[in-house]
């Protein structure tokens, strides 16, 4: 039996903020889900199953929150699944939902990811005082900063590239009404002179901590035919994992990321991603990860990623816009961040990205990673349905 083509017909996200004290967790997910249904012109009864993702339970301290959220997501009497893959979870959640449509298990699936970081403590939740172990000597940025230094050493990238990425993403966020950070007075000089937290990572080159949720409605061909707006069609999706630590692990360009991208491109018939893909939403929690992922995802040869950033190729009006939404650097509700990348890629090819729309975007890549650079999930969506 052939695979059922999957269409993204509804996309919704919350207004993201440092703290959404106006809503409960249920109210937060509801806001995104309701917008996705409205975008698809569907009601709760049109949904056959719900697939939900978030970071580990101890972030908010609600154990298996998916059960408590069944009412808010109209999931009573329907299958409700939870996906766990750390920071990449928003991406893998969408892929699990897509697989249910591909395999014709369900026709229309609501998928959603969220984090209410103001009610949690991500730092503590990830840094438990495990007996006998050496105490951690630095926070999340301290975990990633040495890998950034390794990238700079390996490629000879000049110091300022990270600031260019942050300056670009924060300006893109000004065009995205849902983004958490709206730094209207941002200048490159302000980024460059922001405090050095974990040298070589500056304050302005790090992601914020956000409350937010993102939802999508995925459906089959018949569902797409009924949708009021153009759908985004799934052309390829893949996940890969590897251990956090092993002898030979390449922290700068993890093998799992390369393999995952290669699988997606093979499914989508992409042979030259740099030329064939029109927009990229990649998971960049620290600005230097843009050039690092440009190489890992095959948009640039090894050692050349920073040159694309430096030349302005990844700007909103560049040849290969990266994170037109403002990216993780502007909005980071951890569990939802991966799904936001996937959803923003879909918005681009649907032509519904508003002020941060990339002109004539026909194919876009959504990318997420998580854990100690150990879980990867990606999808490629296009304006046209797949031909096979």
């Amino acid at each position, binding site marked *: 039996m052939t695979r059922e083509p999957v269409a993204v017909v509804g996309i919704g996200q919350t207004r993201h903020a440092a703290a959404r*004290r106006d809503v409960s967790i249920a109210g937060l997910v509801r806001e995104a889900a309701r917008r996705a249904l409205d975008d698809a012109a569907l009601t709760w009864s049109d949904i056959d199953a719900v697939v939900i993702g978030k970071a580990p339970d101890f972030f908010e301290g609600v154990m298996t929150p998916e059960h408590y959220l069944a*009412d808010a997501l109209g999931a*009573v009497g329907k299958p409700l699944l939870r996906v766990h893959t750390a920071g990449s979870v928003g991406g893998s959640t969408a892929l699990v939902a897509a697989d249910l449509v591909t395999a014709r298990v369900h026709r229309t699936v609501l998928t959603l990811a969220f984090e209410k970081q103001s009610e949690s403590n991500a730092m503590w939740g990830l840094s438990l005082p495990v007996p006998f*172990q050496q*105490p951690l000597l*630095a926070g999340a940025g301290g975990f990633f900063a040495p890998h950034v*230094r390794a990238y700079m050493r390996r490629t000879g990238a000049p110091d300022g590239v990270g600031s260019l990425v942050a300056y670009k993403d924060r300006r893109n966020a000004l065009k995205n009404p849902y983004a958490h950070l709206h730094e209207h007075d941002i200048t490159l000089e302000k980024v460059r002179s922001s405090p*050095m937290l974990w040298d070589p990572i500056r304050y302005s080159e790090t992601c914020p901590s956000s409350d937010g949720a993102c939802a999508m409605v995925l459906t089959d061909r018949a569902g797409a035919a009924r949708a009021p707006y153009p759908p985004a069609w799934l052309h390829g999706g893949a996940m890969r994992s590897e251990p956090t*630590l092993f002898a030979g692990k390449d922290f700068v360009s993890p093998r799992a990321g390369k393999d995952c991208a290669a699988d997606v491109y093979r499914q989508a018939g992409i042979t030259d991603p740099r030329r064939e893909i029109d927009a990229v939403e990649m998971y960049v929690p620290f600005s230097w990860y843009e050039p690092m992922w440009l190489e890992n995802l095959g948009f640039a040869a090894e050692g050349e990623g920073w040159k694309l950033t430096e030349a302005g190729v990844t700007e909103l009006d560049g040849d290969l816009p990266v994170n037109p939404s403002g990216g993780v650097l502007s909005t980071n509700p951890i569990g939802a961040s991966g799904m936001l990348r996937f959803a923003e890629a879909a918005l681009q090819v649907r032509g519904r990205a508003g002020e941060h729309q990339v002109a004539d975007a026909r194919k876009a890549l959504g990318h997420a990673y998580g854990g100690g650079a150990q879980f990867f999930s990606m999808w490629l969506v296009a304006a046209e349905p797949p031909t096979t």
Partner: protein
Amino acid sequence: MPEPLTAPLVVEFPFTRSLGPVQSAFLTGLRERTVLGVRTTDGQVLVPPVEYDPRTAEEIRDLVEVAATGTVTTWAWNPAPRRGQPLRTPFAWALVRLDGADTALLHALDAPGPDAVRTGMRVRVRWALERTGAITDIACFEPHDDEATEPTERAATAHASSPGVFADPVTAVTTPARLDYTYSPGRAQTRYLTALAGRRTVGERCPACRKVYVPPRGACPTCGVATDEEVEVGPRGTVTTYCVVNIKAKGLDIEVPYVYAHIALDGADLALHGRIAGIPYDRVRMGLRVEPVWTEGARYPDHYRPADEPDADYDTYKELL
């Protein structure tokens, strides 16, 4: 072989909750000695109230006051209350359908013993003396004799015209969560820690790929086979990469700035993490050769300092980045 080490691990955080409109009204109501439910689209009254109709998924906001008396619908005796539970003496966990509600609320029922509890028995709320807007504002339920009670006993009726509207509503609560574990690092780590106590660092070599893992885990994550050939590594090593930490980490008594480095001990095939000192932070570099500095009684080296030898060539450690 030493017995694997074990130690208690307590994970405890005071999580906060933004309540949203319905839970805010419910908990503020408890503070005011009023129990609120919510009416669903088809007229059922749910207590405790929820924000969305479980049947239709519609948003529901029609709050209604129910009585502080009700009926036990089922129960289980708790002979040994644990830390954090509502009562210190043995009690019944009971589902109580309050008069006016269609669903039952879970809470503690204070009773002298299981023989004094039965399904169908009448109970009433025993309010806590100090109320803050939390489920614990109901201290517990207690047996209730309807005949012996004045019908006007209920406290707050002033809200009946607009249930759920209160001055100074509670909008967030703090909910502590605690997990008690017994942690064991396993046999491989126990061997590693035992050696560290003698200031020796041991790794284990994979019989298949020949890589040396430090700290050892008893298995090679790449080959999936047991590692049992013990290999002593270090004590010197090479800084493969690092960052300069300029913000104080919680619970760490280290002056900033300091250098947090990945250090490949001689003979190890992956780097471990450590602090570099004994050199100005801005003179630390990739390839710096270092050695451990121990303090009395510490399980791990306090930090690493420069060893008196030339820097390692990039090619010797670039595969370890």
